[in-house]
């Protein structure tokens, strides 16, 4: 088998706000943007590295999800306990400074973790946790 990890999905609740965060704050390129209103599927990823993408998608779009489940997902997103992702960079401090300068919500300043990584964390506009670790 020859598999790569190609696209991971994060929910949005305001597509324009999420797009602005991933494109303008994190500097990702926009690879596709389909749908309209709240039902938009936006693919973003690091410029020059087409092999991995994040798909920003409306949550609970699957028609098999019940109203109760839909409400729970929306509440977990608002609480910040639903989606999260791990990114990485060789320049953690520079990245942190740049992202912080764009008024992103900081959850954790660069910190040495006991499990052997140094990382920081931000909150995206939809409540997803974006953790960034240092490549070393």
């Amino acid at each position: 088998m020859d598999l790569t990890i190609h696209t991971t999905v994060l929910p949005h609740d305001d597509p324009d706000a999420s797009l602005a965060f991933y494109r303008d704050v994190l500097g990702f390129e926009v690879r596709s943007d389909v749908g309209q209103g709240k039902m938009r599927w936006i693919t973003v990823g690091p410029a020059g590295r087409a092999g991995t993408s994040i798909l920003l998608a409306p949550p609970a779009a699957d028609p098999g999800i019940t109203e109760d489940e839909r409400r729970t997902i929306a509440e977990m997103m608002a609480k910040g306990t639903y989606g999260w992702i791990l990114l990485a960079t060789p320049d953690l401090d520079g990245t942190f400074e740049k992202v912080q300068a764009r008024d992103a919500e900081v959850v954790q300043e660069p910190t040495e973790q006991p499990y052997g990584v140094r990382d920081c964390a931000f909150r995206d506009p939809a409540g997803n946790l974006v953790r960034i670790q240092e490549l070393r």
Partner: protein
Amino acid sequence: MCHPSWGRARAAAQRLSDFARLRRVRDRIDREHARPLDVEALARGADMPAGHLGRLFRLAYGMSPYAYLTARRVERATVLLLHGDLAVDEVRRAVGCPSPAVFAARFTELAGTEPGAYRAAHRTAAEPSRNEEAPAVAPHLA
């Protein structure tokens, strides 16, 4: 004219907006737990009365803001005790816990043993495995 579903939609929207405010309070605790921070300061930052914040936070996260703040401090203290050279009282101050008595009590409650004993127990192994050195409080990944 007021359709019942409008009221429900308004209540649901209010709930989501409350949760988003609580998320910012919790993120602030995560971000600033090592600094002087108390529930009054958190409530001021969130622009709501402390009692109201406490009730909402407990509803959303299952514990009071104070309990969450202390848990984060204890979690960080376990890391510093295992990986640093700070004395126990220096660890307490480094994680932002103003009271030695409260620190000892909450640490013991959450980590199962008092701070000095925790360090001694976990540092006796020459090369602790990843499992053994995992803090009693789960790593705060998500």
